[in-house]
Protein backbone atom coordinates (compact mmCIF):
# COMPACT_ATOMS: atom_id res chain seq x y z
CA UNK A 1 0.00 0.00 0.00
CA UNK A 2 2.92 2.34 0.56
CA UNK A 3 3.07 3.47 -3.04
CA UNK A 4 -0.56 4.41 -3.09
CA UNK A 5 -1.03 5.74 0.39
CA UNK A 6 0.91 8.91 -0.32
CA UNK A 7 -2.05 10.16 -2.27
CA UNK A 8 -4.23 10.24 0.80
CA UNK A 9 -1.85 12.47 2.69
CA UNK A 10 -1.72 15.31 0.29
CA UNK A 11 -5.04 16.88 1.09
CA UNK A 12 -4.76 20.47 0.03
CA UNK A 13 -4.24 23.29 2.44
CA UNK A 14 -3.70 23.10 6.13
CA UNK A 15 -7.15 23.59 7.55
CA UNK A 16 -7.40 20.22 9.25
CA UNK A 17 -4.49 20.59 11.59
CA UNK A 18 -5.83 23.92 12.72
CA UNK A 19 -9.20 22.44 13.57
CA UNK A 20 -7.52 19.79 15.58
CA UNK A 21 -5.00 21.96 17.34
CA UNK A 22 -7.00 25.07 18.12
CA UNK A 23 -10.69 24.45 18.65
CA UNK A 24 -12.81 27.60 18.61
CA UNK A 25 -10.17 29.96 19.97
CA UNK A 26 -10.66 32.34 17.09
CA UNK A 27 -14.09 33.48 16.24
CA UNK A 28 -15.15 33.40 12.66
CA UNK A 29 -15.00 37.17 12.31
CA UNK A 30 -11.38 37.21 13.38
CA UNK A 31 -10.50 34.58 10.79
CA UNK A 32 -12.30 36.54 8.10
CA UNK A 33 -10.45 39.68 9.16
CA UNK A 34 -7.15 37.85 9.01
CA UNK A 35 -7.91 36.56 5.51
CA UNK A 36 -8.80 40.08 4.40
CA UNK A 37 -5.67 41.58 5.91
CA UNK A 38 -3.51 38.85 4.37
CA UNK A 39 -4.98 39.34 0.92
CA UNK A 40 -4.64 43.13 1.23
CA UNK A 41 -0.95 42.89 2.19
CA UNK A 42 -0.40 40.52 -0.72
CA UNK A 43 -2.04 43.03 -3.05
CA UNK A 44 0.07 45.89 -1.66
CA UNK A 45 3.28 43.93 -2.25
CA UNK A 46 2.25 43.16 -5.83
CA UNK A 47 1.27 46.79 -6.40
CA UNK A 48 4.60 47.99 -5.02
CA UNK A 49 6.62 45.58 -7.16
CA UNK A 50 4.72 46.43 -10.33
CA UNK A 51 5.02 50.18 -9.61
CA UNK A 52 8.80 49.84 -9.58
CA UNK A 53 8.40 49.32 -13.33
CA UNK A 54 11.38 47.03 -13.72
CA UNK A 55 9.51 45.90 -16.80
CA UNK A 56 7.47 48.34 -18.94
CA UNK A 57 3.86 48.39 -17.70
CA UNK A 58 2.56 47.28 -21.11
CA UNK A 59 4.23 43.96 -20.40
CA UNK A 60 3.66 43.78 -16.68
CA UNK A 61 0.73 46.01 -15.72
CA UNK A 62 0.17 47.29 -12.20
CA UNK A 63 -1.74 45.13 -9.78
CA UNK A 64 -4.43 47.79 -9.46
CA UNK A 65 -4.88 47.85 -13.24
CA UNK A 66 -5.34 44.10 -13.22
CA UNK A 67 -7.88 44.29 -10.41
CA UNK A 68 -9.83 46.99 -12.28
CA UNK A 69 -9.81 44.81 -15.40
CA UNK A 70 -11.02 41.87 -13.29
CA UNK A 71 -13.99 43.93 -12.12
CA UNK A 72 -14.81 44.81 -15.72
CA UNK A 73 -14.58 41.19 -16.77
CA UNK A 74 -16.89 40.07 -14.00
CA UNK A 75 -19.56 42.37 -15.43
CA UNK A 76 -18.95 41.26 -18.98
CA UNK A 77 -21.57 38.67 -20.02
CA UNK A 78 -19.28 37.35 -22.74
CA UNK A 79 -16.53 36.60 -20.24
CA UNK A 80 -19.03 35.08 -17.84
CA UNK A 81 -20.18 32.70 -20.55
CA UNK A 82 -16.53 31.64 -20.90
CA UNK A 83 -16.40 31.00 -17.15
CA UNK A 84 -19.59 28.96 -17.35
CA UNK A 85 -18.20 26.88 -20.24
CA UNK A 86 -15.09 26.12 -18.20
CA UNK A 87 -17.04 25.22 -15.08
CA UNK A 88 -19.47 23.06 -17.04
CA UNK A 89 -16.70 20.97 -18.63
CA UNK A 90 -14.97 20.79 -15.25
CA UNK A 91 -18.07 19.54 -13.45
CA UNK A 92 -18.94 16.94 -16.07
CA UNK A 93 -15.34 15.67 -16.17
CA UNK A 94 -15.11 15.49 -12.40
CA UNK A 95 -18.44 13.66 -12.18
CA UNK A 96 -17.34 11.21 -14.83
CA UNK A 97 -14.07 10.56 -13.00
CA UNK A 98 -15.93 9.95 -9.74
CA UNK A 99 -18.37 7.54 -11.37
CA UNK A 100 -15.50 5.59 -12.91
CA UNK A 101 -12.97 5.53 -10.13
CA UNK A 102 -15.05 5.00 -6.99
CA UNK A 103 -16.40 1.56 -8.07
CA UNK A 104 -12.99 0.51 -9.41
CA UNK A 105 -11.35 1.78 -6.24
CA UNK A 106 -13.74 -0.21 -4.05
CA UNK A 107 -13.05 -3.34 -6.11
CA UNK A 108 -9.29 -2.89 -5.89
CA UNK A 109 -9.44 -1.94 -2.24
CA UNK A 110 -11.46 -4.95 -1.12
CA UNK A 111 -9.83 -7.65 -3.22
CA UNK A 112 -6.14 -8.32 -2.71
CA UNK A 113 -6.01 -10.13 -6.07
CA UNK A 114 -7.54 -7.22 -7.94
CA UNK A 115 -5.12 -4.88 -6.20
CA UNK A 116 -2.08 -6.92 -7.18
CA UNK A 117 -3.28 -7.39 -10.73
CA UNK A 118 -4.07 -3.78 -11.43
CA UNK A 119 -1.30 -1.93 -9.64
CA UNK A 120 1.39 -2.24 -12.37
CA UNK A 121 -1.07 -1.03 -15.01
CA UNK A 122 -2.19 1.85 -12.82
CA UNK A 123 1.34 2.78 -11.84
CA UNK A 124 2.24 2.96 -15.50
CA UNK A 125 -0.80 4.90 -16.66
CA UNK A 126 -0.87 7.43 -13.84
CA UNK A 127 2.32 9.32 -14.69
CA UNK A 128 1.15 10.09 -18.23
CA UNK A 129 0.61 13.84 -18.02
CA UNK A 130 -2.88 14.83 -19.09
CA UNK A 131 -1.47 17.70 -21.15
CA UNK A 132 0.54 15.21 -23.21
CA UNK A 133 -2.82 13.75 -24.24
CA UNK A 134 -4.05 17.12 -25.56
CA UNK A 135 -2.67 16.50 -29.08
CA UNK A 136 -4.26 13.04 -29.14
CA UNK A 137 -7.49 14.47 -27.74
CA UNK A 138 -7.60 17.13 -30.46
CA UNK A 139 -7.24 14.52 -33.18
CA UNK A 140 -9.81 12.17 -31.66
CA UNK A 141 -12.44 14.53 -30.32
CA UNK A 142 -11.73 17.93 -31.81
CA UNK A 143 -11.23 21.13 -29.82
CA UNK A 144 -14.57 21.33 -28.10
CA UNK A 145 -16.44 20.17 -25.06
CA UNK A 146 -15.83 16.40 -25.23
CA UNK A 147 -12.06 16.77 -25.52
CA UNK A 148 -12.00 18.92 -22.38
CA UNK A 149 -14.28 16.59 -20.46
CA UNK A 150 -12.25 13.50 -21.29
CA UNK A 151 -8.96 15.15 -20.35
CA UNK A 152 -10.37 16.36 -17.03
CA UNK A 153 -11.81 12.94 -16.34
CA UNK A 154 -8.45 11.33 -17.05
CA UNK A 155 -6.53 13.69 -14.78
CA UNK A 156 -9.15 13.60 -12.03
CA UNK A 157 -9.42 9.82 -11.97
CA UNK A 158 -6.15 9.11 -10.16
CA UNK A 159 -6.49 11.00 -6.88
CA UNK A 160 -10.07 9.71 -6.43
CA UNK A 161 -9.01 6.17 -7.27
CA UNK A 162 -6.05 6.13 -4.89
CA UNK A 163 -7.95 7.67 -2.04
CA UNK A 164 -10.85 5.25 -2.51
CA UNK A 165 -8.48 2.28 -2.48
CA UNK A 166 -6.77 3.65 0.58
CA UNK A 167 -10.02 4.38 2.36
CA UNK A 168 -11.54 0.96 1.69
CA UNK A 169 -8.29 -0.67 2.75
CA UNK A 170 -8.32 1.34 5.93
CA UNK A 171 -11.67 -0.06 7.16
CA UNK A 172 -11.40 -1.56 10.63
CA UNK A 173 -11.17 -5.34 10.03
CA UNK A 174 -12.76 -6.12 13.40
CA UNK A 175 -15.86 -4.17 12.45
CA UNK A 176 -16.11 -6.11 9.21
CA UNK A 177 -15.63 -9.44 10.98
CA UNK A 178 -18.20 -8.54 13.62
CA UNK A 179 -20.70 -7.67 10.91
CA UNK A 180 -19.97 -10.96 9.24
CA UNK A 181 -20.54 -12.81 12.53
CA UNK A 182 -23.93 -11.16 12.81
CA UNK A 183 -24.75 -12.55 9.40
CA UNK A 184 -24.65 -9.36 7.34
CA UNK A 185 -24.43 -10.02 3.64
CA UNK A 186 -21.39 -8.90 1.65
CA UNK A 187 -23.40 -6.19 -0.05
CA UNK A 188 -24.67 -4.90 3.29
CA UNK A 189 -21.13 -4.84 4.71
CA UNK A 190 -20.03 -2.86 1.70
CA UNK A 191 -22.89 -0.40 1.92
CA UNK A 192 -23.08 0.04 5.67
CA UNK A 193 -19.45 -0.30 6.78
CA UNK A 194 -16.95 0.05 3.97
CA UNK A 195 -18.54 2.97 2.17
CA UNK A 196 -19.24 5.15 5.23
CA UNK A 197 -15.76 4.61 6.58
CA UNK A 198 -14.12 5.22 3.21
CA UNK A 199 -16.31 8.24 2.43
CA UNK A 200 -13.97 10.89 3.96
CA UNK A 201 -11.06 9.53 1.95
CA UNK A 202 -13.11 9.49 -1.22
CA UNK A 203 -14.12 13.07 -0.55
CA UNK A 204 -10.50 14.09 -0.05
CA UNK A 205 -9.74 12.51 -3.42
CA UNK A 206 -12.56 14.41 -5.07
CA UNK A 207 -11.31 17.63 -3.51
CA UNK A 208 -7.76 17.12 -4.78
CA UNK A 209 -9.14 16.21 -8.19
CA UNK A 210 -11.35 19.28 -8.24
CA UNK A 211 -8.32 21.57 -8.04
CA UNK A 212 -6.35 19.56 -10.57
CA UNK A 213 -9.35 19.33 -12.88
CA UNK A 214 -9.85 23.08 -13.03
CA UNK A 215 -6.21 23.61 -13.95
CA UNK A 216 -6.47 20.91 -16.62
CA UNK A 217 -9.63 22.38 -18.22
CA UNK A 218 -8.15 25.84 -18.47
CA UNK A 219 -4.83 24.46 -19.68
CA UNK A 220 -6.56 22.35 -22.32
CA UNK A 221 -8.62 25.33 -23.50
CA UNK A 222 -5.50 27.41 -23.85
CA UNK A 223 -3.19 24.83 -25.40
CA UNK A 224 -5.79 23.34 -27.72
CA UNK A 225 -7.26 26.76 -28.57
CA UNK A 226 -10.75 25.63 -27.69
CA UNK A 227 -13.78 27.60 -28.85
CA UNK A 228 -14.89 28.69 -25.37
CA UNK A 229 -13.71 28.86 -21.78
CA UNK A 230 -11.41 30.96 -19.61
CA UNK A 231 -8.37 29.39 -21.23
CA UNK A 232 -9.47 30.29 -24.73
CA UNK A 233 -10.19 33.84 -23.54
CA UNK A 234 -6.64 34.13 -22.18
CA UNK A 235 -5.23 32.77 -25.43
CA UNK A 236 -7.36 35.23 -27.42
CA UNK A 237 -6.28 38.34 -25.51
CA UNK A 238 -2.63 37.33 -25.40
CA UNK A 239 -2.41 36.74 -29.14
CA UNK A 240 -4.51 39.84 -29.98
CA UNK A 241 -1.97 42.55 -29.34
CA UNK A 242 -0.83 41.03 -26.07
CA UNK A 243 -3.28 42.72 -23.68
CA UNK A 244 -1.39 41.67 -20.60
CA UNK A 245 -3.83 43.21 -18.12
CA UNK A 246 -6.57 41.00 -19.55
CA UNK A 247 -4.30 37.95 -19.56
CA UNK A 248 -3.43 38.46 -15.91
CA UNK A 249 -7.01 39.30 -14.98
CA UNK A 250 -8.19 36.08 -16.58
CA UNK A 251 -5.47 34.06 -14.85
CA UNK A 252 -6.26 35.71 -11.51
CA UNK A 253 -9.98 35.00 -11.85
CA UNK A 254 -9.11 31.38 -12.62
CA UNK A 255 -6.96 31.32 -9.49
CA UNK A 256 -9.72 32.81 -7.35
CA UNK A 257 -12.27 30.31 -8.67
CA UNK A 258 -9.84 27.51 -7.88
CA UNK A 259 -9.21 28.79 -4.37
CA UNK A 260 -12.95 29.21 -3.74
CA UNK A 261 -13.71 25.68 -4.96
CA UNK A 262 -10.92 24.25 -2.83
CA UNK A 263 -11.84 26.04 0.36
CA UNK A 264 -15.56 25.42 -0.25
CA UNK A 265 -14.95 21.70 -0.54
CA UNK A 266 -12.68 21.92 2.51
CA UNK A 267 -15.53 23.51 4.46
CA UNK A 268 -17.91 20.74 3.41
CA UNK A 269 -15.24 18.22 4.34
CA UNK A 270 -14.98 19.60 7.86
CA UNK A 271 -18.75 19.94 8.25
CA UNK A 272 -19.66 16.48 7.03
CA UNK A 273 -16.61 14.48 8.02
CA UNK A 274 -15.45 16.53 10.99
CA UNK A 275 -15.79 13.47 13.23
CA UNK A 276 -12.90 11.94 11.38
CA UNK A 277 -10.51 14.54 12.72
CA UNK A 278 -11.97 14.74 16.19
CA UNK A 279 -12.14 11.03 16.96
CA UNK A 280 -8.83 9.36 16.45
CA UNK A 281 -6.23 11.99 15.50
CA UNK A 282 -4.86 11.48 12.01
CA UNK A 283 -1.30 10.31 12.48
Amino acid at each position, binding site marked *: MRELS*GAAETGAGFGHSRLFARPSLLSRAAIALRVAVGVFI*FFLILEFVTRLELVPPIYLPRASTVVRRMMELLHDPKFLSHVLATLYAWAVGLGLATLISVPIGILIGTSELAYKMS*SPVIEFMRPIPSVALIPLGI*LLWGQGFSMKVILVAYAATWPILFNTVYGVHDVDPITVQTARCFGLKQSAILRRICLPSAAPFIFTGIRISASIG*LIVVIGAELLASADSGIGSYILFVSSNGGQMDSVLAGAAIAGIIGAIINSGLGLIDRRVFGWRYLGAPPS
Partner: protein
Amino acid sequence: MSTEAMRLDRWDSRAFRVIQSFAVRYGLGIALIILWEFAARKAGSIFFAPPSEILHRAATLWLSGKPQRLFLSDSVFQDVLPSIFRLLLGWALAVLIGIPFGILIGRSRNLSDLVNPSLQFLRAIPGPALIPIFIILLGTESTMRVTLIAFGSVWPILLNTIEGTHTVDPVQLETARAFQIPRHARLWRIVLPAAMPKIFAGMRVSLALAVILMVVSELVASTSGIGYRIQNAQIMFLLTDMWCGIILLALIGYTLNLLFLKFERHVSAWHRGARGQTTT
Protein backbone atom coordinates in the same frame (compact mmCIF):
# COMPACT_ATOMS: atom_id res chain seq x y z
CA MET B 1 5.97 -41.21 -2.27
CA SER B 2 9.75 -41.38 -2.72
CA THR B 3 11.95 -38.51 -1.56
CA GLU B 4 12.90 -37.91 -5.17
CA ALA B 5 9.33 -37.42 -6.18
CA MET B 6 8.68 -35.21 -3.20
CA ARG B 7 11.57 -32.96 -4.09
CA LEU B 8 10.34 -32.73 -7.65
CA ASP B 9 6.89 -31.99 -6.37
CA ARG B 10 8.18 -29.25 -4.11
CA TRP B 11 10.17 -27.75 -6.94
CA ASP B 12 7.12 -27.88 -9.12
CA SER B 13 5.01 -26.07 -6.59
CA ARG B 14 7.66 -23.41 -6.11
CA ALA B 15 7.96 -22.90 -9.84
CA PHE B 16 4.22 -22.79 -10.00
CA ARG B 17 4.11 -20.15 -7.32
CA VAL B 18 6.67 -17.99 -9.12
CA ILE B 19 4.72 -18.27 -12.35
CA GLN B 20 1.50 -17.56 -10.53
CA SER B 21 2.77 -14.45 -8.82
CA PHE B 22 4.22 -13.24 -12.12
CA ALA B 23 0.90 -13.88 -13.85
CA VAL B 24 -1.00 -12.03 -11.14
CA ARG B 25 1.32 -9.07 -11.20
CA TYR B 26 1.80 -8.62 -14.92
CA GLY B 27 -1.02 -10.69 -16.39
CA LEU B 28 -3.47 -7.84 -16.72
CA GLY B 29 -0.91 -5.53 -18.30
CA ILE B 30 0.22 -8.15 -20.82
CA ALA B 31 -3.38 -9.09 -21.61
CA LEU B 32 -4.27 -5.44 -22.22
CA ILE B 33 -1.27 -4.96 -24.51
CA ILE B 34 -2.17 -8.10 -26.50
CA LEU B 35 -5.78 -6.98 -26.68
CA TRP B 36 -4.69 -3.56 -27.90
CA GLU B 37 -2.41 -5.16 -30.50
CA PHE B 38 -5.18 -7.33 -31.93
CA ALA B 39 -7.87 -4.68 -31.72
CA ALA B 40 -5.62 -2.11 -33.39
CA ARG B 41 -4.65 -4.52 -36.16
CA LYS B 42 -8.25 -5.53 -36.74
CA ALA B 43 -9.68 -2.02 -36.68
CA GLY B 44 -6.82 -0.60 -38.74
CA SER B 45 -7.56 2.83 -37.29
CA ILE B 46 -4.82 5.37 -37.87
CA PHE B 47 -5.44 6.80 -34.41
CA PHE B 48 -4.54 3.69 -32.44
CA ALA B 49 -1.31 2.15 -33.65
CA PRO B 50 -0.60 -1.39 -32.44
CA PRO B 51 1.99 -1.62 -29.62
CA SER B 52 4.45 -3.59 -31.75
CA GLU B 53 4.50 -0.78 -34.28
CA ILE B 54 4.95 1.83 -31.55
CA LEU B 55 7.86 -0.15 -30.11
CA HIS B 56 9.45 -0.45 -33.52
CA ARG B 57 9.02 3.26 -34.18
CA ALA B 58 10.41 4.15 -30.72
CA ALA B 59 13.50 2.07 -31.45
CA THR B 60 14.14 3.95 -34.71
CA LEU B 61 13.41 7.29 -33.07
CA TRP B 62 15.66 6.96 -30.05
CA LEU B 63 17.88 3.89 -30.34
CA SER B 64 19.24 4.21 -33.86
CA GLY B 65 22.43 6.09 -32.97
CA LYS B 66 26.05 5.10 -33.25
CA PRO B 67 27.49 2.47 -30.89
CA GLN B 68 29.92 4.94 -29.34
CA ARG B 69 26.96 7.00 -28.16
CA LEU B 70 25.29 3.97 -26.59
CA PHE B 71 23.07 3.68 -29.69
CA LEU B 72 21.17 6.76 -28.56
CA SER B 73 19.98 8.82 -31.50
CA ASP B 74 20.34 12.58 -31.95
CA SER B 75 16.77 13.08 -30.84
CA VAL B 76 17.66 11.77 -27.39
CA PHE B 77 20.32 14.43 -27.04
CA GLN B 78 18.23 17.21 -28.59
CA ASP B 79 14.82 16.52 -27.09
CA VAL B 80 14.69 13.90 -24.37
CA LEU B 81 17.70 14.71 -22.22
CA PRO B 82 17.23 18.51 -22.29
CA SER B 83 13.58 18.00 -21.32
CA ILE B 84 14.53 15.83 -18.36
CA PHE B 85 17.26 18.27 -17.40
CA ARG B 86 14.86 21.23 -17.36
CA LEU B 87 12.35 19.17 -15.42
CA LEU B 88 14.85 18.25 -12.72
CA LEU B 89 16.29 21.76 -12.56
CA GLY B 90 12.86 23.34 -12.18
CA TRP B 91 11.86 20.84 -9.53
CA ALA B 92 15.14 21.30 -7.65
CA LEU B 93 14.53 25.07 -7.62
CA ALA B 94 11.04 24.47 -6.28
CA VAL B 95 12.47 22.30 -3.50
CA LEU B 96 15.19 24.83 -2.65
CA ILE B 97 12.66 27.65 -2.49
CA GLY B 98 9.70 25.77 -1.05
CA ILE B 99 11.27 24.14 2.00
CA PRO B 100 13.06 27.18 3.53
CA PHE B 101 10.12 29.50 2.95
CA GLY B 102 7.73 26.85 4.19
CA ILE B 103 9.62 26.52 7.46
CA LEU B 104 9.94 30.27 7.78
CA ILE B 105 6.19 30.74 7.37
CA GLY B 106 5.21 27.62 9.27
CA ARG B 107 7.15 28.57 12.40
CA SER B 108 4.65 31.33 13.04
CA ARG B 109 0.98 30.41 13.27
CA ASN B 110 -0.13 33.97 12.67
CA LEU B 111 2.02 34.33 9.59
CA SER B 112 0.70 31.05 8.14
CA ASP B 113 -2.88 32.16 8.67
CA LEU B 114 -2.06 35.49 7.07
CA VAL B 115 -0.46 34.13 3.89
CA ASN B 116 -2.67 31.05 3.48
CA PRO B 117 -5.35 32.68 1.25
CA SER B 118 -2.74 34.23 -1.04
CA LEU B 119 -0.91 30.92 -1.35
CA GLN B 120 -4.14 29.08 -2.11
CA PHE B 121 -4.85 31.65 -4.80
CA LEU B 122 -1.37 31.42 -6.33
CA ARG B 123 -1.52 27.66 -6.37
CA ALA B 124 -4.84 27.62 -8.14
CA ILE B 125 -3.61 29.73 -11.06
CA PRO B 126 -3.26 27.35 -14.00
CA GLY B 127 0.35 27.21 -15.22
CA PRO B 128 -0.54 27.49 -18.92
CA ALA B 129 -2.37 30.75 -18.23
CA LEU B 130 0.91 32.33 -17.19
CA ILE B 131 2.84 31.31 -20.29
CA PRO B 132 2.09 34.56 -22.15
CA ILE B 133 3.54 36.58 -19.24
CA PHE B 134 6.50 34.28 -18.82
CA ILE B 135 7.35 34.52 -22.51
CA ILE B 136 7.29 38.32 -22.39
CA LEU B 137 9.37 38.51 -19.23
CA LEU B 138 11.84 35.70 -19.87
CA GLY B 139 11.83 34.98 -23.59
CA THR B 140 11.36 31.57 -25.13
CA GLU B 141 14.59 29.93 -24.05
CA SER B 142 15.21 27.36 -21.35
CA THR B 143 15.08 29.99 -18.59
CA MET B 144 11.39 30.56 -19.21
CA ARG B 145 10.61 26.84 -19.22
CA VAL B 146 12.59 26.11 -16.07
CA THR B 147 10.97 29.07 -14.30
CA LEU B 148 7.51 27.90 -15.30
CA ILE B 149 8.23 24.40 -13.97
CA ALA B 150 9.61 25.83 -10.72
CA PHE B 151 6.74 28.28 -10.29
CA GLY B 152 4.09 25.65 -10.89
CA SER B 153 5.60 22.92 -8.74
CA VAL B 154 6.65 24.98 -5.73
CA TRP B 155 3.18 25.17 -4.13
CA PRO B 156 2.71 21.58 -2.94
CA ILE B 157 6.17 21.70 -1.34
CA LEU B 158 5.57 25.06 0.27
CA LEU B 159 2.11 24.21 1.60
CA ASN B 160 3.15 20.78 2.84
CA THR B 161 6.23 22.19 4.55
CA ILE B 162 4.09 24.77 6.34
CA GLU B 163 1.67 22.05 7.39
CA GLY B 164 4.52 19.75 8.39
CA THR B 165 6.12 22.44 10.53
CA HIS B 166 2.82 22.70 12.40
CA THR B 167 3.03 19.04 13.37
CA VAL B 168 6.14 19.59 15.48
CA ASP B 169 5.56 18.38 19.02
CA PRO B 170 5.45 21.55 21.16
CA VAL B 171 6.72 19.68 24.22
CA GLN B 172 9.87 18.69 22.35
CA LEU B 173 10.38 22.24 21.24
CA GLU B 174 9.82 23.69 24.72
CA THR B 175 12.17 21.11 26.21
CA ALA B 176 14.86 22.02 23.72
CA ARG B 177 14.36 25.69 24.50
CA ALA B 178 14.56 24.99 28.23
CA PHE B 179 17.87 23.25 27.70
CA GLN B 180 19.01 26.29 25.72
CA ILE B 181 19.66 24.34 22.58
CA PRO B 182 20.54 26.92 19.95
CA ARG B 183 18.04 27.96 17.30
CA HIS B 184 19.70 26.31 14.31
CA ALA B 185 20.09 23.03 16.19
CA ARG B 186 16.39 23.11 17.11
CA LEU B 187 15.63 23.64 13.44
CA TRP B 188 17.82 20.79 12.19
CA ARG B 189 17.17 18.32 14.99
CA ILE B 190 13.51 18.87 15.84
CA VAL B 191 11.58 20.92 13.32
CA LEU B 192 12.92 19.48 10.08
CA PRO B 193 12.72 15.81 11.12
CA ALA B 194 9.16 16.24 12.36
CA ALA B 195 8.10 17.96 9.16
CA MET B 196 9.95 15.52 6.91
CA PRO B 197 7.12 13.09 6.04
CA LYS B 198 4.85 15.94 4.95
CA ILE B 199 7.68 17.59 3.03
CA PHE B 200 8.40 14.36 1.20
CA ALA B 201 4.74 13.92 0.32
CA GLY B 202 4.76 17.43 -1.12
CA MET B 203 7.98 16.84 -3.03
CA ARG B 204 6.51 13.74 -4.61
CA VAL B 205 3.34 15.48 -5.70
CA SER B 206 5.34 18.33 -7.15
CA LEU B 207 7.62 15.95 -9.02
CA ALA B 208 4.58 14.60 -10.86
CA LEU B 209 3.44 18.18 -11.39
CA ALA B 210 6.86 19.10 -12.79
CA VAL B 211 6.52 16.43 -15.49
CA ILE B 212 3.19 17.96 -16.50
CA LEU B 213 4.64 21.47 -16.51
CA MET B 214 7.61 20.34 -18.53
CA VAL B 215 5.20 19.24 -21.27
CA VAL B 216 3.13 22.40 -20.90
CA SER B 217 6.22 24.57 -21.26
CA GLU B 218 7.18 22.77 -24.45
CA LEU B 219 3.81 23.01 -26.16
CA VAL B 220 4.15 26.78 -26.68
CA ALA B 221 6.80 28.64 -28.70
CA SER B 222 9.18 25.74 -28.61
CA THR B 223 11.56 24.06 -31.02
CA SER B 224 12.69 21.04 -29.06
CA GLY B 225 11.70 18.74 -26.23
CA ILE B 226 9.40 15.79 -25.74
CA GLY B 227 6.29 17.96 -25.55
CA TYR B 228 7.27 19.74 -28.75
CA ARG B 229 7.79 16.38 -30.51
CA ILE B 230 4.35 15.17 -29.45
CA GLN B 231 2.69 18.33 -30.67
CA ASN B 232 4.67 18.31 -33.87
CA ALA B 233 3.62 14.70 -34.48
CA GLN B 234 0.01 15.77 -34.06
CA ILE B 235 0.35 18.57 -36.59
CA MET B 236 2.14 16.28 -39.07
CA PHE B 237 -0.42 13.55 -38.35
CA LEU B 238 2.30 11.06 -37.32
CA LEU B 239 0.24 9.20 -34.78
CA THR B 240 2.74 6.47 -34.06
CA ASP B 241 5.32 9.11 -33.15
CA MET B 242 2.79 10.71 -30.85
CA TRP B 243 2.16 7.44 -29.04
CA CYS B 244 5.91 6.97 -28.68
CA GLY B 245 6.17 10.34 -26.96
CA ILE B 246 3.23 9.65 -24.65
CA ILE B 247 4.66 6.29 -23.59
CA LEU B 248 8.11 7.80 -23.11
CA LEU B 249 6.54 10.35 -20.76
CA ALA B 250 4.85 7.58 -18.82
CA LEU B 251 8.20 5.82 -18.49
CA ILE B 252 9.91 9.01 -17.30
CA GLY B 253 7.20 9.72 -14.76
CA TYR B 254 7.21 6.13 -13.54
CA THR B 255 11.01 6.04 -13.18
CA LEU B 256 11.21 9.39 -11.41
CA ASN B 257 8.54 8.32 -8.94
CA LEU B 258 10.32 5.03 -8.30
CA LEU B 259 13.68 6.74 -7.75
CA PHE B 260 12.09 9.25 -5.44
CA LEU B 261 10.44 6.52 -3.36
CA LYS B 262 13.78 4.74 -3.05
CA PHE B 263 15.41 7.99 -1.96
CA GLU B 264 12.64 8.73 0.51
CA ARG B 265 12.79 5.26 2.02
CA HIS B 266 16.54 5.63 2.36
CA VAL B 267 16.38 9.04 4.03
CA SER B 268 13.40 8.50 6.27
CA ALA B 269 14.11 4.95 7.42
CA TRP B 270 14.79 6.27 10.93
CA HIS B 271 11.41 7.93 11.02
CA ARG B 272 9.49 4.71 10.76
CA GLY B 273 11.66 3.36 13.55
CA ALA B 274 11.08 6.45 15.67
CA ARG B 275 7.33 6.28 15.40
CA GLY B 276 7.16 2.51 15.41
CA GLN B 277 4.94 2.45 12.34
CA THR B 278 4.97 3.20 8.67
CA THR B 279 4.19 6.71 7.74
CA THR B 280 4.33 7.67 4.14
